[in-house]
């Protein structure tokens, strides 16, 4: 990497000679940096951890420990310590599970889809997005365990020869779920790791002590030869293609967990694409949220620029429009269908007990779509932060409404129910949020948050070239 030349001179860009757009100017910032400066800019926030960082870690760890206590309490005393009941057998646990699976979708979306379509602006944010996928999936993967009545027997779901002479039931969507989530977790972790190898080598070359040992191990002896680069690119391309169907299947299956039952409003063909769209929407929004925070806290302003927020904001908006479309397509059909149970459910949601949640959901999911249409708002980190946070509040509410709201009503009004989460559920849900954040910030302190090699690669794209006496801004295709 370091041996690569870059086109623009270090200091001889003729300021003021030509009219450059603000955006292009920002793009050129990196072009003016040396490799060493880029390396340092990425590595510095990794290595330097101030008291704020440790305070955050302490608070998060406390929340996690409390959540673990709540989980242990629930395992010891029984699931009844949570607010789930008959008929609301699934509560916040499953809603949060769906939420985390949804969050996990943006990483792949950004990284793989954009890689395939050669969207160049992806470069600085791919790693952050992939890490989000992996950690959100880890958190999602906790919930099937949390939610099991006899978690100590979880391995009975695994297909292995056993003394019960039983295979698991592959008819059950829970088995599909398990397989899909594990595949996705493994796939996305490998994908994250592959792209990490050159940067591990870079970090190895710039660190001492335990970090050196760690990076040396993780770098797998990467030297940066042409052959290695070739193989890496090929592997990444293959992964990008393969992981997309996996990512589609995961949330489809999560949707089918609900849709294959006879429960009105769950039992719907639109559920799978609706879930996927919602997942992409909430995942992209979460990614934007994270990027704004990381950019500020790790001082990565040079790497994460307005163009990224602009593009991301556009994607969020498009995903939001898609979500609204699917929501409406499902809703209008059910509403006109006027099936009595569905009618009750819709009434309860729109005007009944669940109305505050429903209108919160609608506001939080639709309002940002409108505002993100404006470039000024998209490119303003504060506004973006606010709206993407709002979207995730909305999407979380949506999961709760789908899972809990629909289970409170069924065919026999005598057996309807009301669900109220207890401290146990709230603690455990908080534990996974804290766990996600903790994993993420630890990750960002151990691994170069910005994929340095991709940046350097992408840096080639924009430059000022001297043609005759004129400095001409250029843009190139990179393959």
């Amino acid at each position, binding site marked *: 990497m370091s041996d690569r030349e870059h086109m623009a001179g270090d200091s001889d860009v003729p300021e003021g000679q030509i009219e450059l757009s603000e955006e292009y100017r920002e793009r050129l910032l990196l072009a003016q940096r040396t490799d060493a400066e880029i390396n340092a800019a990425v590595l510095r926030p990794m290595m330097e951890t101030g008291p704020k960082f440790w305070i955050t870690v302490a608070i998060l760890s406390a929340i996690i420990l409390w959540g673990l206590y709540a989980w242990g309490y629930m395992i010891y005393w029984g699931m009844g310590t949570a607010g789930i009941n008959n008929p609301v057998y699934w509560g916040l646990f499953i809603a949060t599970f769906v939420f985390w699976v949804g969050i996990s979708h943006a990483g792949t979306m950004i990284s793989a889809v954009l890689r395939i379509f050669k969207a160049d602006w992806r470069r600085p944010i791919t790693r952050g997005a992939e890490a989000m996928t992996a950690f959100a999936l880890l958190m999602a993967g906790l919930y099937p365990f949390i939610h099991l009545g006899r978690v100590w027997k979880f391995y009975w779901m695994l297909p292995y020869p056993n003394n019960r002479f039983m295979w698991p039931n592959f008819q059950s969507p829970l088995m599909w779920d398990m397989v899909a989530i594990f595949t996705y977790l493994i796939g996305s972790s490998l994908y994250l790791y592959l792209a990490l190898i050159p940067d591990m080598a870079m970090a190895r070359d710039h660190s001492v002590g335990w970090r050196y040992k760690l990076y040396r191990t993780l770098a797998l002896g990467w030297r940066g030869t042409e052959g290695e680069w070739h193989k890496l690119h090929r592997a990444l391309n293959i992964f990008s293609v393969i992981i997309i169907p996996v990512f589609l299947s995961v949330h489809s299956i999560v949707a089918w967990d609900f849709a294959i039952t006879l429960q009105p409003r769950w039992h719907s063909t639109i559920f799978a694409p609706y879930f996927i769209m919602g997942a992409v929407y909430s995942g992209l929004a979460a990614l934007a949220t994270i990027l704004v925070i990381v950019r500020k806290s790790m001082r990565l302003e040079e790497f994460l620029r307005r163009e990224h927020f602009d593009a991301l904001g556009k994607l969020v908006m498009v995903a939001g429009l898609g979500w609204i479309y699917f929501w409406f397509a499902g809703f209008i059909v059910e509403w006109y269908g006027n099936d*009595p*149970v569905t*009618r*009750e459910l819709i009434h*309860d949601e729109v005007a009944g*007990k669940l109305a505050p949640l429903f209108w919160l959901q609608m506001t939080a999911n639709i309002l940002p779509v409108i505002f993100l249409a404006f470039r000024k708002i998209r490119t303003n980190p504060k506004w973006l932060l606010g709206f993407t946070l709002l979207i995730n509040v909305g999407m979380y509410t949506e999961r709760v409404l789908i899972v809990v709201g629909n289970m*409170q*009503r069924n*065919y*026999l*009004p*005598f*057996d*309807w*129910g*009301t669900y109220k989460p207890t401290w146990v559920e709230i603690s455990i849900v908080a534990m996974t949020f804290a766990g996600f954040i903790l994993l993420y910030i630890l990750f960002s302190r151990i691994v170069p948050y910005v994929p340095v090699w991709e940046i350097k690669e992408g840096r080639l794209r924009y430059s000022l070239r001297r043609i005759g006496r004129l400095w001409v801004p250029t843009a190139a295709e990179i393959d």
Partner: protein
Amino acid sequence: MGKEISRRTFLKVAAGAATASGLIPQVRRIALEPFVRPPEEELPGRATWFASTCRQCPAGCGIIVRVINGRARKIEGNPNHPLNHGKLCARGQAGLQVLYNPDRLHNAVRQSGGRGSRIFSPIPWSEALDELTAALQSLRDPQALAVLAGQPSDHLYTILASFLEVVGAPPAVIFDLHTALDGRAECASLSSRWFGEHQLPIYDLAHAQVVFSFGANLLETWMSPVAQSVAYGQMRQSRLGGRGVFVQFEPRLSATGASADEWIPVPPGTEGIIALALGRIIVEENLGRAGKHSDHAHLYRNVSVADAAQACGLPVEELRRLAHLFAETDRPLAIPGGQLTGHTNSKQAMDAVMALNVIMRRLGRHGGVFTPQPVPAERFASPAPTSNLTEILDLVERMRSGDIEIFLIHGANPIYELPAWVGFKEALEEVPLVISFSPFVDETAVQADLILPDHTYLEGWGYQVVSPGADRPIISGQQPVTQPLHDTRSTADILLSLASRLGGAVARALPWEDEAGFLEESSAQLHDNSISTYDARTPAGFWSLWRQHGGWWSKRAIKREPEAVGMPKGAMAVPAAAFQGDKGTYPFHLMPYSSLTLSDGRGANQPWLQEAPDPMTTARWNTWIEINPESARSLAIKDNDMVRVTSAYGSLQAAVVVYPGIRPDTVAIPTGQGHSDYGRFATTRGANVMDLLTPSPAEQGNKFAFCATRVRIEKVGQVKPLARLEDLDGEGRESIR
């Protein structure tokens, strides 16, 4: 070849030689002794069934108990028993939780910290008996011995009655709330007034075509609910000649009313007025095919249908429709009881209802009214009567004035069950020695000096002459199905030991060694009886068949046609019921009703019964008050709001159930909760509706007018979510399809 000795041959020879020489070891055969020796009838792991009698209410249903490894595991109805035909109600099923109740007393105890202290110290039975004997011997006047018993098993009643008679004490007062709410005393008095019978009449529900029930919740707790439910099932579907019609007259829709085809929400206390009006219409219009009604016309001389219609808030047309419905069928039947007996006019009201059966000539007819054939043996001829309120008030008065020195209490819990105004607890404090025979520390036992716990009914002996009976004379036999769990002792046995200790005439009058001996001798009275369903060559064999069958009954159905000898001669009139409390201050009638599961509160210590939902409200584990939706709206109260219910006598708090099936001027509270003692499952929940009841007016003093109280309701401001099975958002709909 020379002779070879093979190995086998050698061994044979050697063995023979050893035997011959006597060298083989001489082992004695000794049976192996296991550490635990099971009872002979027990096969490990195999179920044995024992027939006995349910004592959860006074109905006397036959039960069979599944016993495995010496432990009772399941109670079912005795399929051969002619009363309940193998069926059993919720309370009957829960009997195991009486036996295995964790709050039972394990032995005789003295309340060493003084009455009410709840500090008990165990005492040996011999000491308890010595003390009781000494107390009886030092009694200066036998009249100072008083006994209160709550519907005892008939064998205990017989022994107790002879004991009291021979020592010269007044007869036992028999009272419990369950039968009081049934109006058992009233029904018995109706029977003796009209038919000259002290036994309760039998209503042939199974074969009636039109049943009018005036206040009797005959599918829940009234009299013999299982037998009546069996008959109800037959009336509905399993007979030729069509489905019977069932009309219930009551201010609050009970579960029985819910099963009826029609519920007529009559104002409290007007049931009799309606019955009179119906009779008047029938006689006047000469309805039905039962012949001319002219000979009964005089009964209705003073009845004005229009006035009655006004009193009960029903249009005259509606009364006429009901009269036609009742009369224009071959087999109508009118049943009085339950809440109707809780009014001040109950005597006249019951007369009015029974008169309907007479004018339709339903006495002794298929689907009509019968009187039971008595059991053909002298020992079983006089089952336990039910005392009326006068006798109880009299007892309380004697206690209060210090006339009672020894007070024995068995099978009843008057401090909980009697209305607070009776002042039983205060009166009991005046008695120097109070002895309870309760297996549980209930509210009354807490006020006793000694508690000498009786066996529970699954551990003890007994019999019960079934009353009201079925279609034949029945004695339900009770026998231990398991060894007593704890060091308890049968109260009948205690009385017998007391008798032998006292000696003299008492010992001669009660010569039996124990209650089983008494039972065996009693059963022998029916030996060689021609109507018996089984017979044996010897009395001993007869007794074993008795135990095997779970009692005695006749082969064939024998019912008697009652003669209405004592029927009112002149014109009948039902006065307006009187209520306690001013209508302005206390706008609501209070209907206390017997809980289907907990009955009068005796079921409150059985978790199965606490957990079984009330059929109408589906509420569990607590007390509630039922209010008409309209009244609730006007008071701005909703489901689960806590309200304070106040009568002229007392007040309590309960959660609201907005109940579509109750008159707007009436509220209803079930009995059963609000225990201060009675074990972990019963205490600290709900309130006791008996605390609200207001004393009846003086002229009706002998009457337990439990429906005659008016109350007012105020919102407390708290919300108490009742443990209802039903989801309130469902609004009681069956299906939203």
